[in-house]
């Protein structure tokens, strides 16, 4: 059993609160990605789970054991560091075997286990080398091997791919995901890369300024962002967010702003409400002028190869549109952008939290 539970976990550095009252329940076998911008507290949180940093407040369980005050060597977790932290004076074989050596396993057993792990990671020919004689990708695999060798209760990974080049990163990403599919070991993975989070996670915990912003599957976080922060952090280009007012006209709700008119497809009659309206670039479509939508002027067209992104200006707000190439617009052109009502996201103007429509049970007219 290697379920990890966090309860009110807090870490303060002087006046700065790096992690604030964090509660998480990570199920056995889950691949949880801690995602967030730098300084959001995700690495601090991971180091607290590893035991490298004592929490200021809160409790931590691994399985049924309270590990809050247990030193790292007595927690059953393995960690892959961003710097890999391969012991520079030891060979690859000794690096991978290190966790077994600390457990005083017989030499023959260590050798056999190291050989087995090296074979799965394609490191067999490199066992006698020192870390400095390895390439970045090989070092990364040795770091993984050192974590794998002892069948830990959980893997903790601190941005393990950030030192690799783009091509190697994609390959290693797939390898780690495959490894997790095979071993089913609980994994907590820290990254600031939304592609890693979207492709690998069973659930994403999105962190902002030490607090949990949203917790959910990659689709939930992408399709129904819980806040403006979540909406703009995931997705490239970021979600367009504009200030608008929800108004009821002829019994139908619509979002209005200067040069903007989009139907929300909800039949209701409510007083005007200011909101922040969000729509992803790939959900905006170009419609003939004169139709309702967002009136904008194209300022630039970016070619991404398979797709194009049109950067537009709608009033004072920048809006981007993403679609298959060619989009058929040129810089300086006036366009109208439309979006399906179910693709629109509404957020509260003050708190930035997501607004969901809840139909009131209307009493039947008698």
């Amino acid at each position, binding site marked *: 059993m290697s379920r990890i539970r966090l309860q009110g976990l807090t870490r303060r550095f002087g006046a700065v609160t790096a992690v604030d009252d964090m509660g998480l329940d990570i199920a056995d076998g889950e691949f949880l990605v801690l995602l967030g911008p730098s300084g959001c507290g995700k690495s601090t949180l991971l180091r607290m789970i590893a035991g*490298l940093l004592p929490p200021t407040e809160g409790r931590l369980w691994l399985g049924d054991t309270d590990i809050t005050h247990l030193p790292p060597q007595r927690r059953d977790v393995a960690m892959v560091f961003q710097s890999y*932290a391969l*012991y520079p004076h030891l060979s690859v074989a000794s690096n991978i075997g290190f966790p077994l050596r600390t457990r005083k396993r017989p030499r023959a057993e260590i050798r056999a286990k190291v050989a087995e792990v090296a074979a799965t990671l394609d490191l067999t020919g490199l066992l006698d080398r020192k870390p*400095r004689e390895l390439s970045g990708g090989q070092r990364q695999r040795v770091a993984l091997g*050192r974590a794998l060798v002892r069948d830990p209760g959980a893997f903790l990974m601190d941005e393990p791919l950030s030192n690799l080049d783009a091509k190697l990163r994609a390959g290693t990403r797939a390898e780690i995901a495959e490894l997790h599919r095979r071993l089913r070991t609980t994994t907590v993975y820290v990254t600031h890369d939304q592609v890693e989070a979207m492709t690998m996670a069973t659930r994403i915990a999105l962190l902002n300024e030490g607090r949990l912003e949203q917790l959910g599957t990659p689709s939930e976080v992408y399709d129904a962002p819980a806040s403006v922060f979540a909406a703009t952090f995931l997705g490239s280009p970021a979600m367009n967010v504009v200030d608008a007012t929800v108004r009821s006209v002829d019994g139908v709700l619509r979002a209005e702003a200067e040069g903007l008119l989009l139907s929300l497809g909800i039949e209701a009659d409510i007083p005007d409400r200011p909101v922040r309206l969000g729509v992803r670039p790939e959900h905006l479509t170009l419609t003939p002028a004169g139709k309702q939508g967002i009136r904008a002027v194209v300022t630039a067209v970016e070619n991404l190869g398979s797709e194009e992104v049109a950067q537009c200006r709608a009033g004072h707000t920048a809006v981007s549109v993403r679609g298959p190439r060619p989009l058929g617009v040129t810089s300086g052109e006036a366009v109208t952008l439309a979006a399906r009502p179910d693709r629109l996201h509404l957020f509260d103007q003050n708190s930035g939290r997501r607004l969901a429509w809840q139909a009131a049970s209307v009493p039947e007219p008698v």
Partner: protein
Amino acid sequence: MVSGTFVEVAAPARNREAGTAGTAPASRESGWSRIRRLAPPYLYLVPAVVLLVVWTYQPLAQTFVLSTYSWNLVPSTPMVDVGLGNYERLLGTPELGRAVWRTVVVILGMLPFTVVIPVAVALLTRRVRGRAQGVYRALVFAPMLVAPVAGAAVWQWLLDPSAGAVNRVLGTDVNWLNTASTAQWSIIVITGWHVVGFAVLVVTAGLAGINPDYAAAAQVDGASRSQVTRWVTLPLLSPTLAFLALMTVLLSAQWTFPLIDTLTQGGPVSSTTNLYYLLWEYGFRSHDAGLAAAAGVLFFLGFIVVAALLTRLAARLSHHDD
């Protein structure tokens, strides 16, 4: 029927982008502008090189020359060329062998003060946090700031056979500095007290240079605190320790000099006369400049060999931490 043919797309022409046709001939640089371009780095080096030559290389060369003459340091006395005579005389004296052995004893006696104690102190003070850490380190470093001769005077008083604090604390009545068996050890302990702070500072800097991720990784890998120290920290500290060992071997005898000269003058019965003190005695007590120069040359060559061996060992120990 429309017919056609496939035409291969040409690779981009190489020089088109630069806008030049063909290769341009390299322009010739005049001799003067070449000098003006290359001279500045050497001009910057000149002051340092001049100082090195005047204060180090020239005296070194003069020592070599002097070692082949017999001279008593009196300017009016002529210098007599004796060839290798000084070397023959030097190697024939039994004093030399004894001085070499005493130097070895001093070096071995100093190693605990320059390596063992500093490592222990640095590892322990690392656990102390905040202001107390600075206080501890300052206390350990303080003896380094005391002038050796001033320190020697205080130690002479502490080691006084009748009223000294050391004898009173230990309940003994040993004449520390005037007994052949204890004088050498007294000198070693006082020198050690003097340099231990510096060594602690070096070890602390070495520890600070080790990426803390290694210790963190080892802890997560299951290593206890003592295992982290033995298997990770000390091996990574080995280049620093090799440096300290090198310093000890090359400089111990020099560090002892002011203390020997103040406290024992090489005695009693030459028990504290190491290589440097012997050399100084030849030159400035016996006024035998040629013999002293010959001794200087021999020590110089000997220490070069030792230093070369030790630096090679240190290079082997260093791990490129990246």
